[in-house]
């Protein structure tokens, strides 16, 4: 590409980390469906998650731009997109962990920060210090804290629920272990048990399959399907395209802007994924492979 003299000068003056705002927003011709397409006819308080015109910026660089989204209940939803697309940021913004620059988020019809008690959260595994002096049981009990209120200690009932959740992820034999002595897959299952103990209606999981073995992955997905059967809504940040097709009922395609949101079979197409991932060749070949499998 030929750069004009001015542009060259500009590039010299502004190294890559100082790229101007407008250049950081990918110019994707997005035609996402109307936000309420999948939630038509539902009462406001039955819509697990509704986002309007959400924009988030780090150090004045937009990471998410004008997101409009309304999620129907009882679905297992994957959030996919390239690195730096703002997937984790979207979850953190919904959870009220990041300041937003515009827009609002509603959880079951109420302001997100006021209704977080109905939300369960599985952060990225690396986000906590695993040398922390607590046992597996202690971590799962933390999932009960939200229900306890100030000054109260977890009681027998909370311990029973925590044990049941550990049983579900097959981690009960490790209940008294210090968390540092766990493998990556085991740590992930502890986080999942903690989320189950929260007994929420809407779950956010940030890459729950990162660094876990195939057996753990399939047992986790089994649990997610079980949760969905109980009418819970689960949003999962996911990295792996080929499995995304099989795992999720619906997909959110994200690359700073919302590219598309809909049932997997409608959204998981070559052109939509190409729009999401841009011109990255390695990923595009992966996309092509995944789509080919989808048709076969």
């Amino acid at each position, binding site marked *: 590409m030929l750069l004009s003299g001015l542009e060259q000068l500009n590039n010299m003056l502004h190294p890559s980390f100082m790229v101007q705002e407008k250049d950081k927003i990918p110019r994707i011709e997005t035609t996402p469906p109307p936000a309420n397409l999948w939630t038509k006819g539902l009462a406001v308080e039955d819509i697990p998650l509704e986002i309007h015109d959400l924009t988030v910026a780090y150090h004045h660089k937009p990471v998410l731009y004008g997101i409009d989204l309304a999620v129907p209940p009882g679905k297992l939803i994957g959030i996919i997109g390239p690195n730096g697309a703002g997937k984790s940021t979207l979850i*953190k913004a919904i*959870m*009220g*962990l990041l300041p937003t620059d515009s827009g609002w988020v509603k959880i079951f019809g109420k302001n997100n920060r006021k209704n*977080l*008690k109905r*939300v*369960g*959260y599985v*952060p990225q595994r690396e*986000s*906590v*210090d695993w040398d*922390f*002096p*607590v*046992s597996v049981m*202690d*971590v799962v009990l*933390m*999932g009960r*804290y*939200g229900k*306890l209120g*100030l*000054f*109260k*200690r*977890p009681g027998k009932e909370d311990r029973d629920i925590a044990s049941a959740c550990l049983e579900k992820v097959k981690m009960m034999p490790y209940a008294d272990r*210090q968390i*540092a*002595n766990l493998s990556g897959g085991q740590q992930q299952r502890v986080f999942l048990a*903690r989320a189950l103990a929260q007994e929420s209606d809407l779950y956010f999981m940030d890459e729950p399959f990162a660094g876990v073995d195939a057996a753990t992955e399939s047992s986790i997905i089994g649990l997610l399907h079980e949760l969905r059967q109980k009418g819970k809504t689960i949003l999962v940040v996911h990295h792996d395209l080929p499995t995304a097709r099989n795992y999720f009922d619906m997909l959110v395609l994200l690359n700073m802007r919302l590219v598309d949101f809909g049932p997997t079979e409608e959204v998981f197409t070559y052109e939509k994924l190409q729009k999401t991932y841009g011109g990255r060749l390695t990923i595009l070949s992966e996309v092509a492979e995944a789509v080919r499998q989808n048709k076969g």
Partner: protein
Amino acid sequence: MSEMIPALDWQAIFVAPWTTDFSIYGWIFLMGFLVCAACGLAGNYLILRRMALVGDAISHSVLPGLAIAFLAANAWTNRQASGEGIDLAVEPSGHGISYGFAIFMGALIAGVLTTLMIEIIHTRTRIKQDAAIGITFSTLFAFGVVLISVYADKVDLDADCVLHGEIAFVSIQPFFTIGAYQLAPSPVIRMGCVTFLTLGLMVVFYKELLVSSFDPGLASSMGINATFVHYALMCWLSVIVVSAFEAVGAILVIAMLILPGATASMLTTRFPIVLVLSLLHAAASSVLGLHLAIWLNSSTAGCMVVAGAGIFCVAWVFSPSQGILQNWLKRRRNSKRLTGGEIGTETVGES
């Protein structure tokens, strides 16, 4: 060589402090224990949150807070027509409450300001947290030094006291009295209140402190405001540091914040037991430090920290999970097993 080490007089060093001289050393021990306990309890959370150096920063930047508080209080009392020099250790009777309050507020504001400055530098620029801490506390400490030297006649802060405190003088301080009954020296009473409040707050807010230290994201999702907890903890840390400042000084208070928790974490992986062990460490290091100080006739606070560090080293050697001895034994056992031809018959290296 022998004249460099004082004679170890058992009677004078180990018995007398608890018998004939108890009225002096009893208070020193109690003060030492209260300081170590409060610092150790709060320090546990600093260690867990990887903010050990924030405690360092606060203990230094309390200095300008104290200096400004002195100036403000002086200006206030001067206006009320009395103008004597004020000693940090000896509060002038009659102005005790207003001085105490001014110092307390000054330290609190300095502590919060330190935390805010670190946070702002670290989040708004590319400077990392450790560098932000370095910038903040050195700047504030220097500012305090400048203030004290410029207004030396108005601010009677002794450099010696700032550095290692005056815990040895605690028993000659004015006593706190209820009616005719002399209860305890007032610094001990004050530190006692701070320590018990620290313990109380940690019991009451155990859950909130634990979850917001381990996983701030989860805490926020439960409606526990992790940012608020962070600043509340920093405020309380400033209170502890300024209370301990008088007894052990700015430098030694850092050791007392970190050593108990670090020692406890060598010995256990259960947080409630960590808290109990850090209290035990506080008690042991005050007793040993007191005897060491009598023996060597040296700074009591310094000796308490040396004793605390000694206990840490012992814990390191004998720790069941990460101890030097344990590791050595494990390696020897494994190499024996491997060379002994037992390989393949059982799992090696099982923890």
